[in-house]
């Protein structure tokens, strides 16, 4: 390696490390705040005395564990619904050349761009007519639908990267289209399915406004709304407790992302770049 290249590489790495520090800081900071004793959050960056009391209080107050369970159920359920629906559609769009395909693609893309807030009233209305208010079914269906457009794009990218020869070979061997899809196509697109599930789970897990408006029952609330309640139900300034709640909400997404990073990245590339 030439001397110039070495210097360049050192400079670039130094810059990127600094950049990563800046990116990381707010996340680390919220962890630090959560270990401070009450009313000491802003006296020093590092806690003068480290404490887990905020976490203990978080789980003592109210039904926070229940909220987390709800977030998991709605998040996973929504992601599963999205993945199933989007996979089928993406397969159709990637493999068949049917009439109206262009229109359907444009329609789905257009649906990604609607501002969602005012939609909540009609959704509330439909849900109440169907007797679905405050049920997991409602949240799973709503989350399931939210994720569909992006997920179709992700899965379409994956399907298009599979050589068609495999399916043709299966067809020659006498497999029905359904068998081909289940036994040949799906196993190859496993990374795509994982990516879709993960991305949608994280989106659903983080959603705040939808559960805020659609859920009226304490036992059915999601963790993000619970966090908001903490901010408003508790007396005075309790930033440390709030930080603990923030951390608890951040951790699952962080762990999933750190362990399964490549699926996330590949999924996003397929969805947004090739779509």
């Amino acid at each position, binding site marked *: 390696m030439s001397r110039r290249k070495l210097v360049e590489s050192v400079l*670039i790495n130094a810059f990127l490390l600094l950049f990563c520090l800046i990116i990381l800081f707010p996340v680390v900071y919220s962890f630090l705040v959560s270990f401070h004793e009450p009313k000491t959050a802003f006296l020093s960056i590092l806690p003068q005395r480290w404490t887990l009391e905020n976490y203990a209080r978080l789980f003592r107050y109210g039904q926070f564990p229940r909220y987390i369970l709800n977030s998991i159920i709605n998040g996973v359920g929504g992601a599963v619904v999205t993945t199933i629906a989007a996979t089928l559609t993406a397969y159709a769009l990637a493999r068949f050349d049917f009439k109206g395909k262009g229109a359907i693609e444009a329609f789905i893309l257009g649906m990604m761009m609607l501002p969602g807030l005012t*939609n909540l009233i009609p959704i509330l209305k439909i849900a109440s007519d169907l007797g679905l208010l405050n049920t997991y079914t409602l949240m799973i269906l*709503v989350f399931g639908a939210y994720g569909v457009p992006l997920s179709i794009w992700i899965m379409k990218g994956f399907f298009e990267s599979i050589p068609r020869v495999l399916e043709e070979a299966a067809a020659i061997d006498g497999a029905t289209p359904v068998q081909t899809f289940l036994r040949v196509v799906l196993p190859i697109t496993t990374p795509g399915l994982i990516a879709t599930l993960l991305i949608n789970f994280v989106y659903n897990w983080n959603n705040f406004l939808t559960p805020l408006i659609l859920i009226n029952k304490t036992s059915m609330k999601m963790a993000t709304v619970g966090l908001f309640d903490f901010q408003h139900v508790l007396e005075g300034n309790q930033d440390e407790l709030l930080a603990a709640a923030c951390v608890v909400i951040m951790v699952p997404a962080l762990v999933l992302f750190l362990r399964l990073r490549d699926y996330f990245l590949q999924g996003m590339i397929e969805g947004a770049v090739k779509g």
Partner: protein
Amino acid sequence: MKSRGGIYPYLLTLPSLLLIFAVTLYPSLYSIYMSLTRSKHGVTEFVGLDNFRRILNTTDFYQSLQATLIFTAFYVLFTITIAYAIALMLNRGLRLTGFYMTIIFLPWVLSEITTGVVWRWMFYPKEGIIQNLIAPLINNIALITRPWGAMIIVIAATVWRSISFAMLLLLAGLQTIPTEITEAAQIDGASGFGVFRYITWPLMLPTVVVTAVFILIQGINGVGMILSITEGGPGRATEVLGIMMYRQAVQYYNFGYAAAIAVLLLIINAILAAFYLRALRQESALAA
């Protein structure tokens, strides 16, 4: 040659279309209807375009539009510039690329409500850790209390959260440029800047446009970050159209009015979407 597939493709697209219809399309059409109504004392009446007339006759709307434009312009500019610079660096195949990607992507998997809270803390007047760091440089003014300062903070926070996504799109685009071309140019004596200016940039332009429009649409529709950091203040300095709609619906319960703002946002989005689709088509035409 793709097969037509008979009835199969229609059956396969049906579940998605049903979901989208029930949760997105029908409610959107309904909210367009709502934008033509007004509700008072529990009685809803049809008022035609009156809500639009009222909105377009206020200075608030134009202030919000202006805030939206300033916010999105700087947000897109900084996101794309920084993301592009990072993508160029990562494209050199550094040994630590995986590590960098992980860190840069962290903000994206975290919710706006939790990260917004943290950004607010960092800029608390007197106590905020970043506020205290920069206070001597800006005459001891609390940044978040000034209209321009609050705008800077919400732009910084939103850029912070979106860089990863833009970077990924741009990196993927960079990787489609065959290294032979740039290497050949370098052998021919082109400078690093020359390669960028005459080879990388023209090839990347469509990707940059697609990324920019995508980021722009997210910026216009996303209110979570601003809501949890400044709630639109001080004054109306950071009250973008999304926040204005939020206030009308969630704070004043003027649902018709809020729906009318949503329709205006929809129109802005539709125009952007048209650009997006065109850019996308150009990009795929170039790639082919």
